[in-house]
């Protein structure tokens, strides 16, 4: 890893990272506020409201049974299971495709890689910048939840914060892993971003289909969304170690594969 490169990436992306982090903090605080208004104060109305929604829609937002009436269930359904995923995946895909594929496309990589940096260190410097940016967004999200809970006098155990922090980071790293892989093998930003977005949507579709149709239930394990259950992380105050290992393992494998291919490929715009 080269700290000069990592710092440069973070400086150039500082505004974007800050926007995503503040946005996520604000939205998570808002959802906590809504939990108090909808669930705590108008439980009966909300129960009735849920009965008129199609089952598939509820499934899409990971809403099942009475889970939605818990703090973790509500926060997961209304934000962490879907909207947070869309926001964070968009950020990660944009960041990773810009980190390598755009440098190849624009030709800036020709000059930087003529310096004594080394391709692997160049790659890992970008990964390190993404990890720090992801941690900032996850921390901001947790900060928003904490502020929201504090203002609404909702008790959230520290273990729940820790669990959702670990799970969200592992999920983000998994998306980052294959996104970096595509960025390392593509020569155009659009191609890298398109491939990463397509895989993310495919993962979501597979998980959605497997939870909707029992015949496809086995396919769910092929999706990263199967291993990402923020409701359980908050409610139980722990992360399933198997899920964590799958997400983290995928991140590690795809990052290593991306680095290896980047080391071997020809680089020209």
């Amino acid at each position, binding site marked *: 890893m080269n700290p000069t490169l990592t710092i440069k990436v973070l400086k150039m992306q500082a505004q974007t990272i800050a926007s995503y982090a503040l946005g996520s903090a604000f939205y998570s605080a808002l959802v906590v506020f809504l939990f108090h208004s909808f669930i705590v104060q108008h439980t009966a109305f909300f129960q009735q409201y849920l009965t008129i929604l199609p089952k598939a829609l509820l499934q899409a937002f990971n809403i099942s049974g009475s889970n939605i009436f818990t703090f973790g269930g509500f926060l997961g359904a209304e934000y962490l299971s879907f909207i947070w995923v869309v926001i964070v995946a968009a950020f990660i895909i944009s960041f990773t495709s810009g980190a390598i594929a755009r440098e190849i496309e624009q030709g800036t990589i020709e000059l930087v890689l003529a310096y004594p*940096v080394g391709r692997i260190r160049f790659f890992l410097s970008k990964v390190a910048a993404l990890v720090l940016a992801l941690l900032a967004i996850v921390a901001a999200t947790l900060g928003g939840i904490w502020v929201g809970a504090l203002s609404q006098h909702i008790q959230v155990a520290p273990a729940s914060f820790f669990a959702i922090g670990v799970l969200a980071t592992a999920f983000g790293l998994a998306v980052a892993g294959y996104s970096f892989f595509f960025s390392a093998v593509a020569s155009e930003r659009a191609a890298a971003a398109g491939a990463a977005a397509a895989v993310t949507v495919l993962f979501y579709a597979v998980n959605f289909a497997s939870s909707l149709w029992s015949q496809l239930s086995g396919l769910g394990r092929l999706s990263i969304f199967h291993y990402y259950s923020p409701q359980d992380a908050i409610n139980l105050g722990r992360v399933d170690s198997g899920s964590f290992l799958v997400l983290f393992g995928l991140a590690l494998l795809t990052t290593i594969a991306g680095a290896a291919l980047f080391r071997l490929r*020809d680089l020209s715009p």
Partner: protein
Amino acid sequence: MLEHGRLICYARARMPPIPPIEVVSLTKRYGRHRGVEDLTFQVGVGEIFGFLGPNGAGKTTTIRVLVGLLRSNGGTARIFGRDCWTGTERVHRDLAFIPGDLRLYESMGVVEFLQFMARLHGGVRPRRIEALADRLDLDLGRTIKHLSKGNRQKVGLVQALMHEAPLLVLDEPSVGLDPLMEVIFMDLMREERAAGRTIFLSSHNLSEVERLCDRVAIIREGRLVALEHIDALKAKRVRQMSVLFNQPVDPRAFERDGIVVLDRGERRVRLAVRGDINPLIRTLAAYDVADLTFSEPDLEDVFLHYYKEEPAEKVDA
């Protein structure tokens, strides 16, 4: 032990210096498309080596292999004895580079960019950036996206020269510079050579190559077609001479030993001479010559000669 150390020092002193660039049978293809084919040449220490060729000849491909951006399909490319692909990181410590299509980080300031590049190389001498910027009249306070093509090229030059690397690989380094800056650029190149640095210069600016380079390689359709000292290369070409005699002469008297009469008058003859000029001088010595003008062939004549001839023939280094 001391004797052993002395033996090593003695052996090293007796060894020829490691060439800054050594390319042997280098081949690079892009799928079915040709890049370069069987290139062999060497660049010596302290030399300014010109690398010429028309667009698409394979100059940039060769440079990208040297810099470690492309992997060759065959042969070897070494910089200071290290393989350009497997020893890239070590090679880059001894190298400064300007790409042919120089792209910079648009949102960065000039000084911010140069300091960033300096840190990537482990730092530069204090005031080195400012001194080079002064020489090239480059405003360090600007943002890169607001710079003209010429000023971007100056940024590229400063980033290459600030490291004082023993080898400079420059792909079209003077593109976009105004004539005044070109003079300064050439002064800087001469200073680098005087400091013992080696320069590998790819350029379309033939007068610049002619004035700067010690040796020149010409590449065409991916193959090396000429590799010589500039003077030797030019000497091989046809030179034109105009001779005014004090009395009428028979032009046929000159048509021998590679001399061709291009134009004739009663007392004036225009001749074309290829190669050795001594036979012509000996012939002229027998006549009463009033005036003689001899136009030296420029590199453009040489360049065009190699591009027009078919097919490209391989030249051994």
